């Protein structure tokens, strides 16, 4: 993909449902890189959660406020920045605990950040950029992640990984 535009940007209104646009775009980009179906699904879930977090917690579902999603495609990885106009995540977030939720000691909700961190290879919250507050997610193409008969980029990545 030398000399090509590698970053795709989307602008989404802060309204539930539009996170699916970002999910589908991220999934398509992941297929281009060569990720197999399972990793594509991981990415789709993580992107959806990050977008919903931005819409709900940063923008309070104000549809006039846009969430920017930037997908940067590399030969062996994909970086996804989800940008909002909020103040960022709290420094300390309670780890979800299903036993405590079932006991009524924690809200049933609150899985979004857990899923993002569990499904992505690298996650950084509260990255500051000129566009706003960024949740940055990176998914890397490891040999076991490559789709059967995967894309050209995947083949190159596999070769370089030996």
């Amino acid at each position: 993909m030398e000399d090509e535009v590698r970053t795709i940007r989307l602008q989404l209104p802060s309204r539930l449902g539009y996170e699916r646009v970002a999910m589908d775009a991220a999934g398509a980009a992941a297929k281009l890189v060569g990720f197999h179906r399972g990793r594509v699904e991981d990415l789709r879930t993580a992107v959806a959660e990050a977008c919903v977090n931005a819409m709900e917690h940063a923008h309070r579902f104000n549809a006039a406020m846009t969430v920017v999603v930037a997908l940067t495609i590399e030969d062996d990885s994909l970086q996804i920045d989800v940008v909002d106009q909020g103040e960022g995540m709290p420094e300390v977030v309670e780890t979800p605990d299903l036993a405590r939720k079932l006991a009524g000691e924690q809200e049933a909700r609150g899985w979004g950040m857990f899923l993002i961190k569990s499904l992505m290879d690298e996650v950084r919250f509260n990255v500051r950029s000129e566009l706003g507050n960024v949740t940055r997610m990176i998914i890397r193409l490891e040999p076991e992640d490559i789709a059967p008969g995967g894309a050209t980029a995947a083949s190159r990545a596999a070769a370089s990984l030996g």
Partner: protein
Amino acid sequence: METRAKTRAQVRTLGGVAVIEVDGDLTPEAREEVEAAHRRITTAGVRKVIISFRPDAYINSGGIAIIINIAIAGTRAGQTIRLVQPSEHFQKIFTMVGLRQYVEIFSSEADALAGF
């Protein structure tokens, strides 16, 4: 996104088992529909419950919270709850959040019904 199909939750009974068939995505927008279906069978005194999802259903963290709410209510009512989740991805997600410790997860309704 108003054009999206609304999620429906229909209840079938097979012997002493109630099957809540979730036709659509499991997100916070589906909460009332799905929880209302569960309340109906709980009120009817059903103790064995299967919640069945479509293979292509989108489930987000808000949807997981719905399952947790049903598990809480079901436990209080003395129910055994089994999930039918054909998607390997969402089976993995359910495992990650720990749901397998509290509900059994099957790939098909026939498997969930077997020995229930």
